């Protein structure tokens, strides 16, 4: 699989990661090398195994229980005011 700069840019945007052009080129070339190795999976002999042996994770009952204390949560927040996380304006900016 060959990844070029445009494809690397597309993936970076999906992943919320920013690279400059040189960074994108380096990433594209590393991804190409690794994906070329991964492409050997195409040759694997996957005979009919029926359904994949899926084990379903049991879910616990959805019952209310105590949540985290606010103080240590606030302590870790990059921006916090009046018990709320502060973020840049989302609507109507710029």
């Amino acid at each position, binding site marked *: 699989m060959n990844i070029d700069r445009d494809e690397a840019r597309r993936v970076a945007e999906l992943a919320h990661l920013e690279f400059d052009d040189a960074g994108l080129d380096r990433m594209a070339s590393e991804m190409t090398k690794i994906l070329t*190795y991964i492409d050997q999976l195409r040759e*694997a002999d996957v005979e009919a195994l029926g359904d994949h042996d899926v084990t379903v994770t049991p879910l616990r009952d959805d019952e209310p229980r105590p949540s985290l204390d606010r103080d240590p949560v606030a302590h870790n927040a990059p921006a916090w005011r009046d018990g709320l996380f502060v973020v*840049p304006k989302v609507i109507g900016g710029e």
Partner: protein
Amino acid sequence: MSDLLELPWSEARGQVSPREYVAACLRAVEAHDGALHAFLHVNQEAGEGTLPIALKDNIVTTGMPTTCASQILRDFVSPFDATVVTRLRARGAAIVGKANLDEFAMGSSTENSAFGVTRNPWDLDRVAGGSSGGSAAAVAARMVPVALGSETGGSVRQPAAFCGVVGLKPTYGRVSRRGLVAFASGLDQIGIVTKTTRDCAEVLRIIAGHDPLDSTSSPERVDDYAADLARGVQGLRFGVVTEAVERLEGEVRANFDAAVQVLRGGGAIVERVSIPSIVYAIAIYYVVANAEASANLSRFDGIRYGHRSERARTLDEVYFDSRGEGLGPEVKRRIMLGTFALSSGYYDAYYGRAQAVRAKLRHDFARAFERFDYLITPTTPEAPFRIGEKADDPLAMYLSDIFTAPANLVGIPAIAVPSGFDSAGLPLSLQIMGRHFAERAIFRAAAFFEGETQFWKALPRILAARGANRA
């Protein structure tokens, strides 16, 4: 008191007060960690405990930092303890410190730590392995008797092998992951590093068991894992994975063949077994693990905790700039690969295909376990490599997990036990894999091997010099 720390935990704990045991560990950290850098945080307030322990710094703890060796969590202090930490504290553990790792446990050398590499106690120019390199080096250098690490593809066993200590990856679901910062949730499992098999078995009994806060933790009964340590291997059946040993050469091969002879000497039946799909393990691993990682690491967005870029003015800039500044190159590479493998147009060809081949791998292992009680390989294809040797070649680094990643993909338990040294005096290791939840059985086999060989008693060079002075 340095002799105290050379004893296994199970022997030392009865010979000293809990206060003195912890103090001895803190003194050892003071003496050796300047050279090794196994610790990211040393807890001078560790106080007293019958179990002084180091925790990989992706296991969350109240009252001290949890950084995952990442700039993005540089100042993070968890509001809660991981379930394993709660269980350990209840049993008298004292947390001596938080151990270094590859950032977010992504790596095989601890070179990806944002806070500097951990050095190998046997040779300071070589890596301690990874990603739990700090945990393994801390135990190997006798700074703590026990450390916890975490595994996604071999991150406890590989550094344990490189540092000449015992490393266990339990069955997937055996130990709660609550409070282990998620890398690949379907593969991650907390593991244990100790000097001896007995110590490892006893610690597993403390941390194993179902946890209502981790739905993937198993309700399977917690066993007496040390019950069979003295029973030997007479009549037990070991399968040597043909595809793994075929590609071995030189001293690693000779060391493995010698290990097989030790098992045969105890009356074990050792035969070759083919697991054809094992050659695809690394390819499967780097699709599945990275796909899960790309989703898990989306939580690091600069909003609720962790680093937020100073220059971000819009919400998008908060995401892109905070992640851009806070995440290191290997983490970004894996997020990119995982995002690609899950993206529209490639999902079936990569993620779907990897899961199909993974099902084949599980099938091949299940078939092998119909004939054998255990499957064995060397833990790593080589002795510890030099710092910097693979830093510019991600694929070469990935291949150092070639023998360990299959157990994570299949979900089975596996242990790394010291198997001697190469001609340069570097540690080598035997890997013993067992059936799901057969930890008691793998401890039995490992204890026999350890008892016959006694390699665990050898002191790494950083300490051997001191031992020579003392004598």
